[in-house]
């Protein structure tokens, strides 16, 4: 097994781990970390699988750099929303009632 394929398999494992965490973690901070693990898994597959005979391919490296910038931006937004939600509701978890969307009869009127 080449080193590149090994990286790719580890990347696949991280992706699966992140996916499970994103769905199963109740806390938002846990979900955000899980998303970052999932993303790292995809990046590792991208650079690992693209190696030909041990020579790194520069194109996926550039893609991963772009991907990291995107992931940082997404993480920042997620953290900002989590803080706001924790300030408003006192807990950094997604409220249950908003998932099943029928309107909350006690909620405020208007838009």
């Amino acid at each position, binding site marked *: 097994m080449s080193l590149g394929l090994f990286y790719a398999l580890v990347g696949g494992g991280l992706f699966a781990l992140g996916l499970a965490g994103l769905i199963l973690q109740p806390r938002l901070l846990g979900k955000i970390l899980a998303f970052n693990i999932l993303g790292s898994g995809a990046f590792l597959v991208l650079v690992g699988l693209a190696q030909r005979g041990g020579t790194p391919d520069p194109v996926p490296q550039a893609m991963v750099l772009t991907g990291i910038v995107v992931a940082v931006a*997404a993480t920042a937004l997620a953290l900002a*929303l989590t803080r*706001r939600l924790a300030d408003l509701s006192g807990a950094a978890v997604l409220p249950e009632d908003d998932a099943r969307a*029928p309107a909350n009869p006690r909620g405020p*009127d208007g838009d």
Partner: protein
Amino acid sequence: MAIESVAPLPWLVLLPLAWATLSFLLGPSRGAGIAIVGLLLQAGLVLLLAWQLTTMGTQHHAVGGWGAPLGIDLVADGLSVVMLLMTAAVALPVAIYARAWFVAKPAGAAWFWPLSGFLVAALNGLFLSADLFNIYVTLELLGLAAVGLTAATGERRAVAAAMRYLLATLLGSGAYLMGVALVYGTYGSVSLAVLGGLVESLPVVMLAAGLMVAGMLLKTALFPLHFWLPPAHGGAATPVSALLSALVIKASFYLALRLWFGVFEPLAAVSAAQVLGALGAAAVFWGSVQALLQARLKMLVAYSTVAQVGYLFLVFPLATGTPAEAAAGAWQGGVLQAVAHALAKAAMFAAAGAMILGAGSDRIDRLGGVGARLPLALFAFGLAGIVLMGLPPTGGFATKWLLLMAALETGQWWWAAVLVGGGLLAAAYVFRVLLAAFAPVPEQGRVTGVARSLEWTAFALATAGVLLGLFAAHVVTLLDVGA
């Protein structure tokens, strides 16, 4: 400079980026004017591009003169241009609406203009991208802008909905990126044109295609992955709801269509297509029934989106492994449904917003008196409803007709039943609103007037949805360029 030599492709991305950045620099709540001017210019550029397409065929542009694989290529074919036209046709009236809306209701106004500019730039960029990775970047930009807009009112419900939306959209694009990684690892390219000739059914490519399509289903909110949509679309400020429901979910649908009938065509299995169709049918019924049960007007409209997304996915069983003529008709019907729904749903949210503003409540049972005080808004709502039901001569009818014909030609009558049943259910939830609005004003209630531009823009969008039916043949001709 001759008009033939103007290249609209890069400007369609740069222009919204420019006005978005400018309105950000101007400060909170500023920038409505430059946004509207920018969107007017954008509409002109798209029309120019459509004209170039019909006279000269598919348009290409190598950004910065580099060319793939080092640089980024932009390509506009018929499908791209129809999507760009849809974006321009919705974004301009919504911007005019938003300008008046935020005067009446300032919640969420602060960063609406920069974020909606980035949203439009991401949409245009996505529709013009010719490689899988650039599409990934635009998808993420689109998702982040859309989530920012959803959260902008800062209320608890909106922030929770935005958080849920963010997690769903990140998971969707994460799955897509994993697919891109597997495709690049296998073929050493992300160019749609190059991959088109290479893809064959290897297990790793099947996995990649499955991940990418699943990611797009989540982002398009196909039942049962729609959980994030109603709170986000129903809870955002009304101009944002219109943009999200009309345009943002269409981007991921466009990508599913592009991948399924393009790069991954050799893998497309009839059984998988039937599953997508079945999920679409379930979405039509579940979304419509939920819409009927909602107490709040905007939630009704949001669940109507869940139902209408279902029709989009009927394309897959009708155009996969079926005779070429029926498949072409179904494909055209699917794209037309995306456009018809964009216009009608933007109109419906806009009209609903005006009605809620007038009635002072978004509960459907308190809409009494709206029919007398805000007839134009209610008329726009009804007109948009007719488009969603698919009555002639609207864009919705052209759509349903094409899909119905394909269903009958390929002997798949059960999809025809979904089309007819869904239309009846849409009629039921639209009439529920109309009946409530024609009721007399409730005691202690008073319907106030709203800014005229709120009603007129809703009416213009709904009219565009109706007229689409009369010009469907032109749209289909445009779609055929480069297809």
